[in-house]
């Protein structure tokens, strides 16, 4: 047992932290959050030069060939710094291509993703807002050499700038909701694809994607017909841990900012950090972060090793959803009035905590999965 990071991972962490603090300061974060595009093409190019989009893409497809655990090291840093843009949704989209794509599809898309030439996102949620298979109603009907997709996807990250979307649609009505789901790689330039940004608390450009008679070539079917649900489940697991890793980074930032503020802010003739009530809250914030940390690391490690870990993933996501809310909320409260100001950085994390909570399964969704995994009938 060795619960430390390797030297290579620590180098990746430091490099990412230094890069992001220089290239994506909070002024740029706010600018991008307020902008229409939501990301910086210049910054995107620089990250491509570092190989970030291709971090977990195998070298044979022009990627860096790193592990899933290495990715979570990077994501802790993007979460800590805050990085608006389609980096994470693009990286996550590579997983279903790697899991289920044909050799032609891998060769067509992965190298371009790795060099930053393509932006991808995944379109899973619909009107019901559930990550259960029953929430998928968009239909894909075969027509000649294509499938024609009709339906509306919601909360698709950065869809308005994405080149392609990995879209889950129903190709057959099966005995259970999990049967008859198929994944497609949809070119967003295809006639009938309409993206509109939904205003959300974290200003993270989650989109409504209306698909009206969108023709997708059969060669862009990802994996087998009607058998897409297991691929979606794996993506949900990886997405959940990815969000958890970002959340750990965000909690770290909130804790550090709050401690620093409590040492500078003077009231009643002393730094407010000298008052025990606040000291205990900060100790609780730190503990909440630290108890999250190793739970996430365990799930990330198991995922990296290819070990079955759906229970651990759901445990981590359910736990971290609440922890990030708790830490970021107390971060605001311990800053007092200034913590509620739009100009202050601490509320950014509170907003991101809500977004992270809803992505890839909320607390109660994952708790139900845990309930099943611990043996409740």
């Amino acid at each position, binding site marked *: *047992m*060795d*619960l*430390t*990071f*390797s030297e290579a*991972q620590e180098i990746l962490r430091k490099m990412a932290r230094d890069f992001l603090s220089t290239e994506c300061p909070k002024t740029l974060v706010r600018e991008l959050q307020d902008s229409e595009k939501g990301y910086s093409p210049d910054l995107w190019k620089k990250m491509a030069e570092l190989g970030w989009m291709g971090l977990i893409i195998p070298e044979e497809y022009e990627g860096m060939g790193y592990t899933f*655990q290495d990715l979570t090291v990077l994501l802790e840093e993007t979460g800590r710094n805050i990085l608006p843009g389609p980096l994470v949704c693009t990286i996550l989209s590579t997983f279903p291509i790697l899991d289920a794509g044909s050799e032609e599809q891998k060769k067509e898309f992965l190298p371009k993703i790795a060099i930053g030439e393509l932006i991808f996102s995944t379109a899973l949620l619909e009107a019901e807002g559930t990550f259960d298979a029953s929430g998928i109603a968009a239909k894909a009907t075969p027509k000649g050499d294509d499938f024609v997709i009709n339906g509306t996807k919601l909360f698709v990250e950065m869809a308005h700038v994405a080149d392609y979307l990995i879209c889950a649609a129903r190709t057959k009505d099966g005995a259970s909701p999990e049967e008859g789901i198929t994944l497609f790689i949809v070119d967003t330039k295809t006639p009938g694809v309409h993206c509109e940004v939904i205003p959300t608390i974290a200003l993270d450009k989650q989109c409504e994607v209306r698909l009206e008679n969108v023709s997708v070539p059969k060669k862009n079917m990802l994996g087998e017909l009607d058998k897409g649900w297991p691929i979606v489940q794996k993506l949900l697991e990886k997405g959940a841990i990815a969000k958890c890793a970002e959340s750990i980074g965000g909690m770290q930032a909130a804790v550090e900012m709050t*401690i620093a503020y*409590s*040492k500078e802010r003077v009231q009643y003739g*002393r*730094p407010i*950090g*000298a*008052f*025990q009530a606040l*000291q*205990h809250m*900060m*100790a*609780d914030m*730190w*503990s909440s972060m*630290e*108890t*999250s*940390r*190793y*739970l996430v*690391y*365990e799930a990330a*490690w*198991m995922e990296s090793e290819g070990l079955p870990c759906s229970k*651990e993933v759901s*445990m*981590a996501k*359910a*736990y971290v959803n609440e922890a990030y809310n708790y830490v970021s909320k107390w971060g605001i409260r311990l800053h007092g009035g200034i913590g509620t100001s739009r100009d202050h950085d601490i509320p950014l994390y509170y907003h991101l905590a809500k977004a992270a909570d809803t992505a890839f399964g909320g607390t*109660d969704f994952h*708790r*139900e999965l*845990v*309930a099943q995994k*611990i*043996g*409740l*009938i």
Partner: protein
Amino acid sequence: MDFRFTDEQMARRKEFLEVCVELEKLKPAEFIGFESTYNYDSCWEYDRHCAKEFAKRGWLTLEWPPEYGGSGTMMDRVLFSEARGYHGIPGIDVFGVGMLAPTLLAAASEEIKKEFLPPIAAAEITWCELWSEPNAGSDLASLTATAVKKGDEYILNGQKTWTTGAHKADWGFGVFKSDPEARSHHNLSFLLFDMKTPGITVRPLPYMNGETIYNEVYFDDVHVPAKNIVGQENEGWAVVNTLAGFERSNIDQIMGMVRGLETLVAYCNETKRNGQPLAKDPLIRNRLAQTACDIEAARTLAYRVADLQNRHEMSLMDASSLKIFASDLGERLALLATDILGPYGQVKLSRWAPMNGYWEALYDECFVFTISMGTNEIQKNIIAWYGLGLPRMK
């Protein structure tokens, strides 16, 4: 990062589990948790039997240096605690094995080590810890019981309280004021003494459930050999604060909760209310799942602490954080379980009590973990002052 154990560690773990499985079969019905050890004669005998089984295998000294009989690492000790915790097996003298032995190894003279370590290793002598006083709990340094040097003896006078198992223990270790004129933290001495020494009176301090776990201990001119000192005279405070070598993973308590949750799940699957198993109630599902997540968070942090200790590193912050989290979780779990049990949640061990009255007992006993070994509030101070660098109010 690697959460796996080596083949050797897995083999040891298997061995620990096999012995604990067999010992669990001998557990008396009234043994519901560690506190039962002190409250029932049958449980005390069971505890001693387990201790001897462990001693003969060298398992009470696993992480000790080899020259004192150690045969493994701190991680082996943690794996042993894991097995004992899951099966609810006592036999580790919390005070002798858990606290005094690592303290002696870190701070005592060779003579003291030679005299006192072997009987601990052999489970021949049991110990109690005499620190707290009526006016000195969290603020231990303000204690007033005295140890006055006279020739080659110390004469002890005063009163200790909350002394776990004093009514059973063979020997005691305590801290006494040995120089009333010296400045605070440099006026205390750490002494070892036979609990049968004339002048020592033990009176039970019944716990809120009526059990005899704690005691008041009175010292009336108790003569103890001056050689039975750990560390230097008047420098006992530093000895009290020796945490090096203390196993701080709390994994035994956490594995007890793992086991507890399993029994609760089984109970909910088998027990009906309103025409359906409790397991189908969405609120019960949600709360049990939440607890399962919390327990896993505790378990992974426990391994973090264990890994650090195995490398002879210590994160005071992680250890304090874990102590707070695991003990608070025990309280929450007891509340949840007794909620799920409905009116049966209040029933003591008897034919009406589900799961042997385990949860009713834990509902009362959970405070043992939140208050002792440094209250959770003190632990938060430790995190804040020594971990986060926040200023202490003068």
